[in-house]
């Protein structure tokens, strides 16, 4: 009896002790306390890191128009106005079918190449219950060379124009400012320049960004191509740049030793050398259009 009394007394006094922050406590009941699963947004600002794909996808129902542009090489000197006389361009459209599936098409001035791809985020970094430590994206593209055949007298097949790319992008936003990604890549080229060149090219991509301010980030990207001959005088692609975000635009300004802007060019066909100043200044500009307005609740 005595014990029950004590227990009751204690129970009674508990709320009194907690009186001053009682409302806080009641509110805390309504608080999920970070237990709900919450996806990490915006691992990167752009759907492309610089040349290659990033782990970021456009949102559902969003159409993105992207202009990627590279000037000529800086070391061409004053006669070429340090590369600014020259231009390589890719025009692209990307669309988010859902928040985890994106498709896109593009046209490259280099080798008059058309490309089409899909990107599927099959794992998304999240926190809360059943948290996922990283985002995993599967990327697959097809690039079609649009040049006229150089030897029309030979038998030429359409399939010889095609290059396929398969890429797994693993990315993690370590902090609000710092994100990293690793992307094992396999390219298959139906036609190569010489017998020594490989049809299948393996590469490992590395990319990262560091946000200097909320709207300005430093970005780097490197592709290490696994041993094997891919092109004469071949180099690994390395790029450095800034992402600048304003409203519905992302501006990406960068320096790179790759002239092309899709995997087919940047991974096996980069021959320019940072050390000798074969550096291209370039930019990507994206603009998004919301085709599907979300219903306001």
């Amino acid at each position, binding site marked *: *009896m*005595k014990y*029950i*009394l004590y227990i*009751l*007394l204690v*129970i*009674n006094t508990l*709320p009194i002790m907690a009186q001053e922050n*009682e*409302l*806080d406590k*009641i*509110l805390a009941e*309504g*608080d999920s306390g970070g237990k709900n699963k*919450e996806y990490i*947004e*915006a691992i990167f600002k752009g759907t492309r890191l610089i040349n290659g794909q990033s782990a970021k996808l456009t*949102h*559902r*129902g*969003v159409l993105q128009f992207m202009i990627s542009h590279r000037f000529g090489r800086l070391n061409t000197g004053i006669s070429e106005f340090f590369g600014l006389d020259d231009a390589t361009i890719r025009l692209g459209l990307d669309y988010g079918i859902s*928040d985890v599936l994106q498709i896109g098409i593009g046209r490259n001035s280099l080798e008059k190449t058309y490309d089409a791809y899909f990107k599927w985020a099959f794992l998304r970094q999240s926190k809360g219950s059943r948290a996922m430590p990283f985002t995993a994206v599967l990327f697959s593209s097809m690039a079609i060379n649009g040049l006229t055949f150089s030897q029309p007298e030979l038998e030429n097949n359409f399939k010889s124009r095609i290059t396929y790319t398969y890429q797994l992008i693993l990315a993690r936003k370590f902090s*609000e400012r710092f994100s990293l990604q690793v992307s094992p890549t396999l390219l298959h080229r139906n036609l190569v320049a010489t017998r020594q060149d490989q049809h299948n090219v393996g590469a490992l991509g590395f990319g990262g960004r560091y946000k200097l301010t*909320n*709207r300005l980030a430093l970005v780097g990207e490197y592709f290490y191509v696994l041993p094997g001959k891919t092109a004469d005088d071949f180099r690994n692609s390395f790029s450095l740049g800034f992402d600048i*975000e*304003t*409203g*519905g635009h992302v501006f990406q300004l960068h320096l790179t030793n790759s002239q092309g802007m899709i995997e087919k060019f940047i991974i096996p066909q980069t021959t320019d050398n940072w050390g000798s100043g074969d550096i291209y200044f370039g930019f990507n500009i994206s603009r*998004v259009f*919301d085709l599907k*307005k*979300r219903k*306001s*609740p």
Partner: protein
Amino acid sequence: MKKLFLITLLINLHAGVWAQKYFTKTGHISFFSKTSVENIEAHNQQASCVLDFATGELQFQVLMKGFQFQKALMQEHFNENYVESATYPKAVFKGKMKNPATVNLNQDGVYTLEVSGELLLHGISKPLTTQATIEVKAGKVYAKAQFNTKPKDFNIKIPSAVRNNIAETVAITVDAVCMPYTR
């Protein structure tokens, strides 16, 4: 001894029955920014609210990530660049109603009360006073209020490129249906 026990028990029961507190987890808080360029609005249906008519105290709390925008990119920018939700996940209002005793909770009726307190947003606390409507209907309390805030006051920086798109004064609407809170 037995008497003491009964009294304690009575107090215990009494505390449970005496519902002066009203509570919800699904309050609706929205904001609206109107400029000649575009209108921006966002809604959050998961505001936690608690009102105590015994003391007049009230609290509202909302997770910034819960605001839903029409455009996905706007929502991303809101969280990433403006309110910095990862650093400041919540907005909290703690305040007091003036003359809470005028509200008769046992009878349907509509009251207008002055509410004043502190709004914590983006890590900055600012005093806020507004008129609130309290409607008692079928045992529930409908709490409504509308007030204006300036992003600048809460150190939310708006870059010059989008200055014309985001209003200097943003209208905030609160609409919560609270149920009696019993422990």
